[in-house]
């Protein structure tokens, strides 16, 4: 068995209760590596076309990476893959924390979960042993209680728990998987898939992680990272969290506000990472073995209700979606809403964005107090925002409609509400704006699981910031930075290469703040060194990038099989409307600009004009079997 792997994949059939161990062999691992690429292999092989994502036929894959659990920053990650109940396209989400490293020691590289249990169960995995246990007593409970109950009944406080919260049980289409009660596989509704299977949680404990090929080389890289960190670009993110970027986003006109009417928010100063550090931050938290410590732990009160440090603290995205999107400049209210999302198990991005959409409808008279049960769902109403988070999680009142996600809610509301839905493939846009980052707009449109800010490098790295990262960017062939706000063929090449790079990161399964092509703690060549040290394989950046391409092509093939084509790769109408106020006043991204860019992008990818991979392209990536799957 190659270094870095357990060499075992656990197949769990919840319908029959049968557990089976697969031992795939070195060739398989080197081709699909782990994380998202490995998850895609099983998604394509095991999920029949056209199934209901919340039905028993859907397959949920939880996969670790080859480096997961190694003693270096940024490696403790888990990927969730399944057909998304939000989009109907492929779903994909990553999380950090201590669960992934603990799971690696528990003996398996991935879990492939099919079927549906006839009553609630949880999976208990420890040192190579696995069993399904009754979870009837845990059903309906919030994440913190479930974690404590499992640790108590199994008699070990070091057990890590990944779970679907009450929102996942109720089929909230953007329900998340939560581990440690504060880390989320947030996007694309993976919590709803797990809940639909009557699988409450996966508890892991392990004492023996796989051997690393070259411990000395890995330790040297880890030391280098720890020494370089204080002068690195991610140092300040460690100090102030991901919200370090919030004030800058506002000042550059890129902080989505009032459901994307504007890129600047008058109340931004209350929501910055710096203010969080100065006021409610209790401590900085970390993922296993990481020096960055970007995770927040906050403690405060909002309207007499405690914000409990157990549930962590808000990220930038959360402060934007539950804050500026909704016009709420109240840090304590956002921290409380963040806690609710972690307690109930929901994606803070889609949750906040869906509420902002509903507020937009309310402001325009498309939704009234008759529908909301008397709630004045106006921008800036923190009380209403928090009420809606709770209603969505429990599928109560108007929240039951919003639990279906922005796209479905817009269709039900009608009368032009669709024009206010800021989604791609029903997946809410995260808090970075195509209006000021053109290539990101292209990636939002073409990304297989919908708009995502963690699927490519953002434009400034190939614009004004380029000189700061020149050497690293050069190492992946990006030599010619482009003007601000441009979407030239060269900028599209940047978007594609960095998309493939980020796809590779999700397949080695490492943190995209720690490893990357630009501002990250470690650059591309160090990533290769790290992967070589762990695996002992004579890996190159070229070979690893090909895994990234393989993943993206498998995802596009999955979508093609579900009937998705070019017409689904579009940005929402709001992005094409001039923004109001701030430094992005009047800015927009026109559909024609996107369509032209798509032509170039698809051709660069080796796809047809509908954005579907050709057989030759799939054969070039050594995955000809995928062409058979999609009838090419």
């Amino acid at each position, binding site marked *: 068995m190659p270094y870095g792997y357990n060499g075992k994949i656990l197949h769990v059939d919840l319908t029959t209760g049968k557990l089976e161990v697969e031992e795939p062999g070195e060739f398989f691992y080197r081709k699909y590596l782990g994380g998202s690429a490995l998850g895609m292999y099983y998604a394509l092989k095991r999920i029949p076309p056209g199934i209901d994502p919340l039905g028993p036929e859907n397959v949920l894959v939880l996969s670790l990476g080859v480096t997961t659990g190694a003693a270096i920053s940024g490696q403790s990650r888990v990927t969730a893959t399944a057909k998304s109940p939000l989009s109907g396209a492929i779903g994909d989400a990553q999380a950090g924390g201590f669960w992934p490293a603990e799971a690696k020691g528990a003996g398996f590289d991935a879990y492939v979960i099919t079927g549906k249990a006839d009553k609630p169960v949880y999976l208990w995995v420890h040192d190579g042993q696995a069993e399904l246990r009754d979870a009837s007593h845990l059903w309906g409970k919030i994440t913190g209680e479930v974690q404590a109950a499992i640790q108590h009944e199994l008699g070990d406080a070091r057990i890590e728990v990944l779970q679907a919260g009450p929102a996942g049980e109720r089929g909230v289409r953007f329900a998340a998987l939560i581990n440690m009660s504060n880390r989320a596989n947030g996007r694309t509704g993976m919590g709803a898939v797990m809940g639909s299977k009557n699988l409450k949680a996966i508890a892991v404990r392990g004492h023996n992680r796989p051997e690393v090929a070259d411990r000395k080389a890995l330790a040297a890289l880890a030391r280098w990272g720890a020494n370089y960190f204080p002068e690195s670009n991610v140092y300040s993110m460690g100090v102030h969290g991901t*919200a370090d*970027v919030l*004030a800058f986003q506002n*000042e550059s006109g890129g902080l989505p506000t009032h459901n994307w009417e504007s890129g600047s928010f008058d109340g931004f100063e209350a929501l910055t990472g*710096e203010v969080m550090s100065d006021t409610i931050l209790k401590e900085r938290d970390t993922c296993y073995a990481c020096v960055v410590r970007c995770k927040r732990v906050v403690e405060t009160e909002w309207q007499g209700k405690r914000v409990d440090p157990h549930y962590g603290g808000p990220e*930038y995205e959360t402060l934007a979606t539950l804050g500026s999107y909704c016009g709420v400049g109240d840090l304590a209210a956002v921290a409380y809403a963040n806690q609710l999302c972690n307690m109930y198990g929901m994606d803070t991005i889609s949750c906040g964005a869906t509420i902002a959409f509903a507020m937009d409808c309310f402001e325009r008279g498309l939704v009234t107090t008759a529908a909301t049960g008397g709630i004045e769902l106006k921008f800036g109403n923190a009380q209403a925002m928090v009420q809606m988070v709770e209603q969505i999680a429990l599928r109560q009142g108007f929240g039951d409609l919003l639990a279906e996600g922005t796209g479905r809610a817009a269709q039900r509301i009608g009368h032009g509400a669709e024009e206010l839905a800021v989604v791609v493939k029903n997946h809410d846009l995260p808090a970075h704006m195509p209006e000021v980052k053109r290539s990101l707009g292209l990636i939002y449109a073409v990304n297989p699981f919908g708009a995502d800010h963690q699927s490519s490098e953002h434009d400034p790295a190939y614009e004004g910031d380029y000189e700061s990262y020149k050497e690293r960017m050069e190492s992946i062939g990006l030599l010619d930075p482009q003007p601000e706000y441009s979407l030239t063929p060269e900028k599209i090449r940047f978007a594609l290469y960095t998309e493939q790079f980020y796809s590779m990161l999700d397949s080695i399964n490492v943190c995209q703040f720690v490893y990357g092509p630009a501002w990250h703690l470690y650059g591309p060549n160090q990533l290769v060194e790290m992967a070589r040290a762990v695996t002992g394989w004579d890996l190159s950046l070229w070979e690893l990038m090909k895994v990234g391409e393989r993943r993206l092509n498998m995802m596009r093939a999955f979508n093609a099989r579900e009937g998705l084509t070019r017409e689904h790769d579009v940005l929402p109408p709001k992005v094409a409307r001039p923004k109001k106020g701030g430094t992005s006043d009047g800015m927009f991204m026109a559909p024609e600009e996107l369509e032209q860019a798509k032509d170039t992008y698809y051709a660069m990818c080796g796809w047809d004009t509908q954005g579907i991979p050709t057989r030759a392209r799939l054969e070039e990536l050594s995955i000809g079997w995928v062409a058979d799957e999609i009838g090419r």
Partner: protein
Amino acid sequence: MRLGSQYERPQSGTVQVNVKLFSGFREHLPPEARGKAVVELPDGSTVEQLLAHLGIDEHVKLLSINSERETDWLRTLQDRDVVRIFPIVVGG
């Protein structure tokens, strides 16, 4: 040149500028300032002189005056201008 936390009656021949520093640039002011200061400079002082006064010699990613982005560092500062200054900030 003086640094304070709020506007005072300006001395003749000077302007007072409200400075807000973000992210890592906050370390150019004492911790208790929390990134905010009122800076008194001679009349006619420029953005460049303000940066020198604050000891900011690293790459400035973005600078705004009264919420409008400014790239001309020879621009003359006016009394009560609000200047926000950002280094490269990442993540999110």
